[in-house]
């Protein structure tokens, strides 16, 4: 036997208050003042209110309400009857209904002071509340907020709404409430309009679910080219300093790109990426490419606005055979410039080495004395002297006893023609040498 499976939920308490054409409902949980409770967690109760207009053919309306709630859209000056039950969905249990309680609605005070048509405008997690002013005169506004969970509590928070910083005593009909918003849960907002010290009016409440209400702004786009690749650099919406958009939405990017030509319609291509860098391969040369990007969240089923169109012109490409020819000629030039001096240097070295160590000219073998010590032969090869016919001049200078016999000289002159090839002993060569010089002078 499991008590929880058998136990049932008793009836809750119900209090009604009729003010200003609306009914304020306050529900107290079952076992409210009991010490020992079956259902300890009284915050998990979901209250179902059933009400109808007291008439001959009552039409039952059913509504899920908070412990402290307001029923509006009721007819004025009519009696309405209410009953409420407490349910525990996780226990799959529905409780007993409370006793029926009836109340009459009052006249609606058509207060022009109240702010109407509350709406929220949000972009990149910057939130603005806008409303209408029915009064022509100046009205002071005080924008108030409440955390979503506070309505779940049993306490009455009606008078405990704090003010939005910066929107406490304003005359404009716009309030920036980004400062109070986080990604944790939803919020309620209302506007208190006042004129002087006496009159004030609370507007209807508006529920704000930040991540659902928020709009995704356009991303930033930058284009870059390298070779035949087009690089698309995306900066996320909300700017580089703000990570909120990226963190909460798990953003992806839809890229639209096309060739912008004036003559024909070009097909718009699409690409979806998760990163902030995308590449388009094989772009055509001398073409204007245009790109625009949109951020979207698949999880939240939300798309942002498209970025501004960015265009870039691809450079004129060189055809492939020309490129190959160019590379070939360049390589050839390099080879010539480098190889030629190198070959020349090698050749020079080879000839020098060959000349020194392996000379090509060999002297004839029949020449005597070749290979003997140098400078052994006193005879140097002398040039053939031009010898003219000459005659012996008889000695003009006659001195007694010193007659020079020139006949000998003739012989010696003859013999002197063959000079150079005879090897004589030193004494005779000396005297002969001096005689030769004398004769030469005479000639």
């Amino acid at each position, binding site marked *: 036997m*499991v008590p*929880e*499976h058998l136990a049932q939920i008793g009836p809750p308490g119900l209090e009604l208050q009729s003010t200003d054409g609306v009914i304020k409902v306050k529900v107290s949980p079952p076992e409210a003042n009991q010490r020992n409770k079956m259902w*300890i*967690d009284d*915050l*998990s109760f979901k209250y179902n209110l059933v009400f109808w207009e007291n008439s001959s053919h009552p039409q039952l309306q059913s509504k899920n309400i908070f412990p402290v709630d307001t029923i509006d859209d009721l007819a004025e000056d009519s009696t309405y009857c209410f009953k409420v039950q407490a349910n525990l*969905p*996780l*226990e*799959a*249990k529905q409780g007993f209904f409370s006793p029926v309680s009836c109340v009459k609605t009052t006249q609606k005070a058509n207060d022009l002071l109240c702010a109407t048509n509350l709406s929220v405008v949000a972009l990149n997690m910057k939130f603005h509340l806008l409303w209408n002013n029915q009064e022509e005169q100046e009205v002071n506004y005080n924008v108030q907020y409440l*955390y*979503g*969970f506070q309505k*779940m*509590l049993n306490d009455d928070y009606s008078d405990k709404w704090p003010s939005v910083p910066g929107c406490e005593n304003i005359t404009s009909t716009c309030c920036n409430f980004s400062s109070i918003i*986080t*990604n*944790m*849960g*939803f919020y309620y907002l209302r506007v208190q309009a006042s004129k002087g010290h006496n009159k004030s009016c609370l507007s209807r409440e508006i529920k704000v679910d930040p*991540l659902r209400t928020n709009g995704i702004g356009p991303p930033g786009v930058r284009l870059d080219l390298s070779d035949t690749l087009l690089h698309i650099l995306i900066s996320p919406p909300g700017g580089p300093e703000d990570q909120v958009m990226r*963190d*909460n939405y*798990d953003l992806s990017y839809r890229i639209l790109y096309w060739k912008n030509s004036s003559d024909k319609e070009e097909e718009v291509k699409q690409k979806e990426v998760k990163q902030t860098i995308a590449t388009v391969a094989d772009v055509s040369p001398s073409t204007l490419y245009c790109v625009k990007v949109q951020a979207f*969240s*698949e*999880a*939240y*089923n939300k798309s942002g606005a498209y970025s501004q169109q960015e265009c870039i012109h691809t450079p004129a490409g060189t055809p492939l055979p020309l490129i190959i020819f160019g590379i070939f000629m360049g390589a050839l030039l390099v080879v010539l410039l480098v190889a030629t001096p190198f070959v020349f240097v090698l050749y020079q070295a080879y000839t020098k080495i060959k000349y020194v160590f392996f000379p090509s000219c060999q002297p004839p073998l029949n020449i005597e004395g070749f290979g003997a010590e140098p400078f052994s032969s006193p005879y140097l090869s002398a040039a053939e002297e031009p010898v003219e016919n000459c005659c012996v001049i008889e000695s003009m200078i006659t001195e007694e006893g010193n007659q020079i016999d020139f006949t000998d000289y003739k012989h010696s002159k003859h013999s002197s023609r063959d000079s150079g090839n005879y090897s004589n002993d030193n004494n005779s060569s000396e005297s002969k040498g001096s005689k030769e010089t004398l004769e030469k002078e005479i000639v």
Partner: protein
Amino acid sequence: MNAFGLIQICLILSSSTIISSLQCNHLPLQQSKVIENSLRLLDKMGKKFPQQCLKEKMSFRFPTQVLQLRQKETVGVAIEEIFQHIFYIFSQNLTLAAWDGKALDQFQNGLYLQIEQLEACVIKKYTQHLWSKEVRRLKLKKYFQKIDCFLKDKQHDLCSWEISRAEMRRCLQLIDKMTRKLKN
């Protein structure tokens, strides 16, 4: 049950699945963010665990069998219940804890959002009926009741709150681990 009745049930279940999946695509992403932020806020709202409270430390023993659920739908309901319990605990008298009110409000708000979303997205009657009879669910309730009783016995003093906060931190980390596993 005749064939027509079966077809009807199938249609209802499949249509509810479609409806809930259309509105609920964001749920895994949102949940991981809420848990991540909740852990951060739990750290932020108070100071380091006080030394004097170490002697009062209690072992509560979270029923890890609950995290071994196979069906995705039952997991959603289980997490909803856990969040509901944590939400209840942190809505008690916190005066003596002296924590950062703003961080606490944000923490509660995040939990409440998840509870509401899970309730809207999970196939209600069928799964909830299954879950209500689940044996492991009773162990879960016992675990949270133990913490609640501990706080009430200590009259919600500082040490009892600090011990409970550390315990809740551990609990959220286990849930985070489980949801990550399910995602993959």
